[in-house]
């Protein structure tokens, strides 16, 4: 981009770490090349004079959207758990231990 950080290179390994994505060396090399092309292309946004322009987050902005404070049926727990890759009795989802010394939960 016209001013600001160096955008000629993307450190894919670092960004993949932020995105919680395991990538192979081959993928990292490939994405660096391909996304380098894409970033080079999007650099043309630097030409546009955006001074005094407000950003658009939503094209049809609505504010303070409220719903009635009323109970309504939700999705049942068993239905939700039926898609869990690993669950335990009592409506729990199993994951690797997060805290040391809590083996065999």
């Amino acid at each position, binding site marked *: 981009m016209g001013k600001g950080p160096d955008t000629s290179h993307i450190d894919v390994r670092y960004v993949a770490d932020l995105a919680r994505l395991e990538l192979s060396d081959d993928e990292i090399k490939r994405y660096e090349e391909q996304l380098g092309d894409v970033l080079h292309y999007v650099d043309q946004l630097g030409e546009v004079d955006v001074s005094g322009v407000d950003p658009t987050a939503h094209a049809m902005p609505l504010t303070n959207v409220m719903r009635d404070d009323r109970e309504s049926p939700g999705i049942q727990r068993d239905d939700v758990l039926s898609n869990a890759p690993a669950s335990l009795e009592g409506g729990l*989802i199993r994951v690797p231990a997060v805290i040391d010394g809590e083996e065999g939960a």
Partner: protein
Amino acid sequence: MGALPLPTLDQAVSALRDGATSSRELCESVLGRIDTVDSRIGAYLYVDREEVLADAAAADRRRADGSQLGPFDGIPIAVKDNMAVRGQPLTCASRILKDFVSPYDATVIERLRSQGFIFLGRTNMDEFAMGSSNENSGLQATSNPHDSSRVPGGSSGGSAAAVAGGEAIVALGSDTGGSIRLPASFCGVVGVKPTYGRVSRYGLVAFASSLDQIGPLTRTVRDSALMLDIISGRDPRDSTSLPEPAGGCASCLSAASVNGMRCGMPREYFEVEGLDPSVRECVENAARQLEAEGAEIVEVSLPMLKYAIAAYYIIATAEASANLARFDGVRYGLRDSEGEAESLLAQYRLSRARGFGDEVKRRIILGTYVLSSGYYDAYYLRAQKVRTLIRKDFEHAFTECDVILSPVSPEPAYKKGELATPLRMYLADIYTISVNLAGICGLSVPCGATESGLPIGLQMLAPALHEKRLLQAAATYEAIRGDL
């Protein structure tokens, strides 16, 4: 391809009402057609024959005893595999959701179900709707029904191919940057992207939440209008859905006329490098036909066109990287790390690495990068400001015209594997993408074909909330165009 054996939606409604057909007969002819051609086209990822026939029998019983749910009761519909239909798989054509079954109905599905529509099955797509050709499906390849060596377009390619191939009467798709209009154009069917907020996104798997919108793919403009009347309108479960009254799209078509309508042709759209001469000719010919019918053709300018793709790929990937963070192999989706992941973090990383395909990973990386510390202002914030300028471009153009006419894509359907780099693929979305950034409504209606018979679509655009004007213009064009 020869005459399609299926009726249009409008014809099916009449035939059911008059007793000329039954839901069973309609569903059997659709299923029969899927049996005959889908091994070649590959539009469907999932079809539940028994369930469809059971639903058809129930609809026929309701009609026999006078308790039908409405004029559409018993009509089958195909659904893109990113909208929740209770009890059916929902994969987004991704390995990460390969075994997922929806525990609830999307709002659009709920509305169609209450009218008696039957959910035929799930149509193929680019994984998580990221792509323009269906080549990014993680599960299956889909071919263009007009030429098997070519792509159907994407990302709603399965829905477009199903309708074009006579394997569905109507279908639902979703459009984030052209994903309904582009495959409609490539396959020679009608596809509508409603105004952002017209149709509830509840139950649509989010790709880029500020751009995604559900819409119909149909054989005729009238069929799309009928569908919009059912699926549009405020939904308390989607806080971005608009409160403005919807409906009346089909009934307004009987008075459709373009007499005195100002049709804008954006100068920059016809200066795009790589615009195929046959596409240009078909679109210009359509404009002449509208002019002969009383429309006024005016030149307009949308100078921000050249920045639309760049702004889109920053905003869409940024939103996608956040939306796809939920796929972590914990509560649902692929967890492919049993016995390997010694930590929760490793489990996230491995599940995502094995579940997501190439394009999805690439976009997650790009989206994470443009949101990351030190780059946010330079990329994301700047793209959002350019988005404002794109919106203003359209606002200004619509002071000079009522609808805009343009190509949908610079080229007709290309060969599989032809757009070999991600950037080349992104550039093919030049005409459709700015419409999502601006939030306005648009559609693709067939306007001709190349010498070799590949369909070409005409894109028509109207200001936000002006679906009626858009559909009236398209229906008028469709009538004067005649059969293709």
